């Protein structure tokens, strides 16, 4: 047992595609449930109160953030154009980290950084076999 815990093999305990499925679905669900859904509803009801981090105006910033956190997370959950959607979310979280939370203490920066790390991993590792990308190939 300890030998298996010391292993550096990718498929020691579970299949890689299954690990990637868990990482992808749970992260995107948290993102959608905690951030994206409220932003999408704000866009749909016309409540454009948002920050203006990169000088595009609050409306375009909110629409871009709602697209990334509401639509692209659905793409990642389904596994459809996963790497493209993860790239969009990486840019989104980089902006959140570099322009919004850069002068905050670490406790408030932490969540943006964790999401950035997870979406970078999804971008680099891909969706795995249990995804629409694999089914539609």
């Amino acid at each position: 047992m300890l030998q298996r815990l010391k292993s550096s093999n990718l498929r020691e305990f579970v299949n890689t595609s299954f690990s990637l499925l868990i990482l992808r679905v749970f992260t995107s669900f948290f993102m959608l449930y905690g951030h994206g859904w409220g932003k999408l509803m704000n866009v749909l009801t016309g409540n454009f109160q948002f920050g203006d981090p990169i000088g595009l105006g609050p409306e375009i910033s909110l629409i871009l953030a709602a697209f990334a956190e509401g639509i692209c997370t659905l793409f990642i959950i389904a596994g459809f154009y996963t790497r493209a959607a993860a790239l969009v979310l990486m840019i989104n979280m980089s902006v959140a980290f570099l322009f919004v939370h850069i002068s905050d203490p670490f406790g408030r920066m932490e969540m943006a950084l964790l999401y950035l790390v997870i979406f970078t991993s999804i971008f680099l590792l891909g969706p795995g076999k249990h995804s629409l990308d694999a089914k539609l190939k």
Partner: protein
Amino acid sequence: MLRFLYSTRIRILVDTGISLFILRTFAAGFMFFGHGFGKVMGLYFGHYQFVDPIGVGPEASFILAALAESVFALFIIFGFLSRLSALVLTVNMAVACTYLYFNQMLGDMEPALLYLLLFTSIFMLGPGKYSVDYYFRKNGIPR
């Protein structure tokens, strides 16, 4: 040319070892920097003010949390016994999530859930090629 945007191959952009190295180092690094270091300093200076989620007393809880979030996070950064360390940190974060859930602090729960997810993924995917585990196994160094 943009086929990698919908490819499902795991090595199409970079080697898997590099991806896992990034995942491992950053997750455990944030854990150590944001939580583990403060807890070790608290332990060193004797501030035992902590919660008691599993009924072993606040001191024992604090020592266990400090151990998991500093020593095992450093193990994960170097890739030494990565799967075991990730398992310890998964248990730690599962306890934190349960405790926060029962206290109805859902805003505070999201980083704990993300850490839980990250360490579960590290446990399942392993340390990859750029780790002490792989180096030891390749060179036949007994542990």
